[in-house]
């Protein structure tokens, strides 16, 4: 289970770098999204990439609204994606 989430975490990290054009060296856990210049449009792109990659649709919600740091963002997305994968109907 832990290994599976590590994979998701790595994918999410790569996807955030690609979609929001941030400098990977600045992606430390407590860097704020504001300091990384990740704005609402970047978040939309990140969620679109998650949809492409994992076939999971995430809407805005209060949890995402309260996110301040990069670490919090990855942790929340990781939770949502792993939940989403678990809830996906068998194809």
């Amino acid at each position, binding site marked *: 289970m832990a290994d599976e989430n590590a994979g998701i975490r790595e994918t999410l990290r790569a996807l955030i770098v690609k979609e929001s054009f941030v400098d990977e060296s600045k992606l430390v856990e407590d860097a704020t999204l504001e300091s990384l210049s990740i704005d*609402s449009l970047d978040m*939309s792109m990140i969620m679109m990439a998650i949809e492409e990659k994992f076939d999971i649709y995430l809407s*805005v919600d*209060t949890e995402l*609204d309260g996110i301040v740091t990069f670490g919090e963002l990855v942790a929340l997305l990781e939770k949502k994606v792993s939940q989403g994968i678990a809830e996906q109907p068998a194809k």
Partner: protein
Amino acid sequence: MAARVAITGMGAISAAGNGAQALWRAARDGSPCISQLDETRFPRARIKHAALIREDITQLLGDAATKLDRFAQLALLAAREAVEQADAEARLAGMKTAVIVGSGLGGAETINRLTDAHSAGEVRVDPLTVPKVMASAAASAIATRYGVHGPVFCISSACASGSQAVGIGMQMIRSGAVDRAIVGGSEALITPAVLRGWEVMRVLTPDRNRPFSADRNGMMLGEGAGIVVLESAAHAEAQGKRPIAWLSGYGTACDAGDLLKPDAQWAAEAMKRALSDAALKPADVGYVNAHGTGTVLNDVAEAAALGDTFGDHLDGLPVSSTKPVHGHTIAAAGAIELIITVNALREQFVPPTINWTAEDPRCRMDVVANTGRPHGFSAAMSNSFAFGGINTSLLVEMAAE
């Protein structure tokens, strides 16, 4: 002195059905009008529901429906009801009437059909595509139907369109430019491609629209049209028409900031300007029909703006969003919700905010949670806020019986 402006007719078509009364009953009773999207037409939709009109519009309109996109058909139907109620048909023709109808995306259905046909390589497409798609088509259709030669135009300011159309119509009557105006908004944009555009903004709820509720997670799209007939008090009186209500205040202010993220300061400014326009004090207002989309950002900003505008008076002021019932009808929202607000005033009953589960400390006010109730008041406000930072407020007041 500027002319006092009366509302003498109201018409609506919405997910609640054909007619302003069907809309009011659904809002008053808190009966949501939600449809599942057709899997065949929306096979890739992530969001599976919307507030769709189930009536057959072409059947309701008859021959008048031809040559019009759905959004213009809806506007014409709503106009027909409003004009009938105002008994105004005989006095609309000529230069002293305006028609101002808000539209966000114009003929979305027609554009959808055009791009599908074009992508499929078809030579034969609808030859009326352009006149059906143009955002002013609804205003033109109404003007043509009633022989209106005065100012006829569309206001396109996204979710504020309908509200601004009403406000500008009122100003034109006050200025003496026209004696009466057919105003409102119309929107029919729920097509597979447009829905996808909304999905990627992440502002649509995948489950239930619940404005101001702590666990809210987005808005629900709707379609519809709301049209009202406005007349100067003198002209209404000359016709022996008693106003349904007075339209007494209009305020608008732009954030001039973020394209999408609302700024409470300028929403409050719109409300304050509407109050000052109507020469009312905050304490005179007894009900607010909120924009209340159910997105995290809108509801927090609107609650802050209401606090700024009404101060301590907000403690006893019912504020409800009826969008979970009829959906967010975008350019029609301002007019549809004005019609609900007028009915609330006339029946002295505040409609509920349904689906509400728990208080968000950032939206602490009387949201008339889940059940409407009788309430005595003589003035009410209706708010509309749009992407692009455009904020509008309208105020209506009770007309003596």
